[in-house]
């Protein structure tokens, strides 16, 4: 018997079914964890938990996957998803660069060194995106929506991240230089304009590819209206037009900066979770240099409920679960269990994602999205190297029997 049921009066609309078990389980998890965070930490952590939940819903309902967007451009020569990402970066840059340089104390941007570690890490991450089936945010929101293959990817993402944390000090000793905030060279307005020019150039290149292949350009990224189900139903059950997801993701990252003091990041939490698991089985993580640095040492020592990326990730998982329940699509992608080479792709992809994210100072969210929103040069290097890695990953997909 199906778990889904037609919504009760008040919510009932023809043909709209929700998975009541998943929705109520997600809401219960949200209430339990939210209550615990409220009792044990501070109100701002609850706010960040809620933001994480909304971001999870936006990623799921907006189908805002970086990985598939890049692959669509390369394989199908369609650029709507890629242009949506560029619009998101532009909007966030417009909002967050002035915020970071407003003189308000306690705000730190997502800036990072530029060097061997970044180039190698982001390149590896790009390969991992296509084999693992998602990036940092993509892996989390699909796990929240019940995708079993992505659970395998996430487990090995965590393993790879811990391994990367152990090796990162060695990589940092290879050629490289300190962070390059574009604001230092161009000022706030200049940095935003330079980034707009860069994003515009990429959009022009994307359009050129699409037009050459299809003769026209699909402007899905500019649609404001859902697919004929009405505002309320579309808001709750999806699918959202890209514009809605862009606005929510940009607002969410800006609020994360305003409330948490730093832009949105995801993969650092994977490091913490993996390191805590190793400590439980007796590994002394402080023997590794990475875990002696102030921030990782603090995060490892204290509760995950005091670690912002962890708290937001918990919210994101529950938000995606809630959204999948409202869309009656929870676990839908897992009807065929990963076996053989597809399973191997999740393992290898996850390891590459984790290792690459640590060396590259984050994933598509922490390094790319938040990096561009902080006008940091490293984000642009990350973008280019991860895209090249992604091209190789796309070429490898057929061997792993992964569909395009």
């Amino acid at each position, binding site marked *: *018997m*199906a*778990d*889904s049921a037609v919504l009760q009066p008040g919510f009932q609309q023809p043909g709209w079914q929700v998975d009541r*078990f*998943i929705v109520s*389980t997600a809401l219960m*998890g949200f209430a*339990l*964890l939210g209550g*615990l965070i409220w009792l*044990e*930490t*501070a109100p701002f952590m609850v706010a960040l938990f809620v933001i994480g939940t909304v971001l999870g819903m936006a990623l799921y309902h907006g189908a805002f996957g970086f990985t598939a967007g890049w692959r669509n451009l390369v394989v199908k020569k369609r650029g709507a998803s890629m242009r949506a990402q560029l619009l998101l970066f532009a909007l966030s840059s417009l909002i967050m660069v002035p915020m970071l340089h407003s003189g308000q104390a306690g705000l*730190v941007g*997502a*800036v*990072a*060194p530029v*060097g061997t570690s970044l180039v190698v890490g982001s390149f590896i991450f790009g390969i991992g995106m296509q084999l693992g089936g998602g990036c940092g945010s993509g892996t989390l929101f699909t796990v929240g929506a*019940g995708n079993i293959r992505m659970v395998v990817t996430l487990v090995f993402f965590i393993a790879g991240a811990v391994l990367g*944390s152990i090796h*990162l000090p060695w990589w*940092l*000793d290879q050629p*490289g*230089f*300190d*962070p390059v905030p574009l604001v230092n060279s161009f000022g706030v307005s200049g940095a935003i304009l330079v980034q707009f020019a860069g994003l515009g150039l990429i959009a022009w290149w994307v359009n050129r590819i699409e037009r050459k292949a299809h003769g026209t350009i699909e402007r899905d990224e500019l649609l404001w209206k859902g697919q004929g189900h009405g505002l309320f139903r579309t808001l709750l059950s999806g699918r959202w037009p890209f514009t809605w997801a862009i606005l929510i993701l940009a607002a969410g990252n800006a609020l994360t900066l305003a409330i948490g*003091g*730093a*832009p949105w*990041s995801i993969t*650092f939490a994977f*490091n913490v979770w993996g390191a*805590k698991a190793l400590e439980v089985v007796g590994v002394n993580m402080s023997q590794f240099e*990475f875990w002696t*640095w*102030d*921030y*990782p040492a*603090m*995060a490892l*020592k*204290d*509760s*995950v*409920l*005091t*670690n*912002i990326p962890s708290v937001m990730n*918990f919210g994101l998982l529950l938000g995606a679960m809630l959204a999948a329940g409202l869309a009656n699509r*929870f*676990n*839908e992608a*897992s*009807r065929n269990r990963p076996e053989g080479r597809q399973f191997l792709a999740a393992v290898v992809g996850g390891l590459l994602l984790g290792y690459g994210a640590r060396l590259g*100072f*984050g994933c598509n969210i922490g390094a790319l999205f*938040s990096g561009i929103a902080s006008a940091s040069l490293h984000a642009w290097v990350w973008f280019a190297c991860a895209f090249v890695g992604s091209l190789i990953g796309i070429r490898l997909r057929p061997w792993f029997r992964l569909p395009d």
Partner: protein
Amino acid sequence: MERAYSRTRILVTLGIILTLIMADHLRSPTFAFNSGQGNVETALMQRDETACAPCGAPCPSTRD
């Protein structure tokens, strides 16, 4: 439509995750502090503003 998942498995998985979070929290300095113990160093605002990257990595120029 046939259900694509087991309810029990979902509840058990979420229960395990919540238990792990609780276990981690109960042995943390924050819980000790909230329980009235003094002399514990908590890290609610975990950040190192002198770091060179969001993960807390130092700047290449500061490394020997």
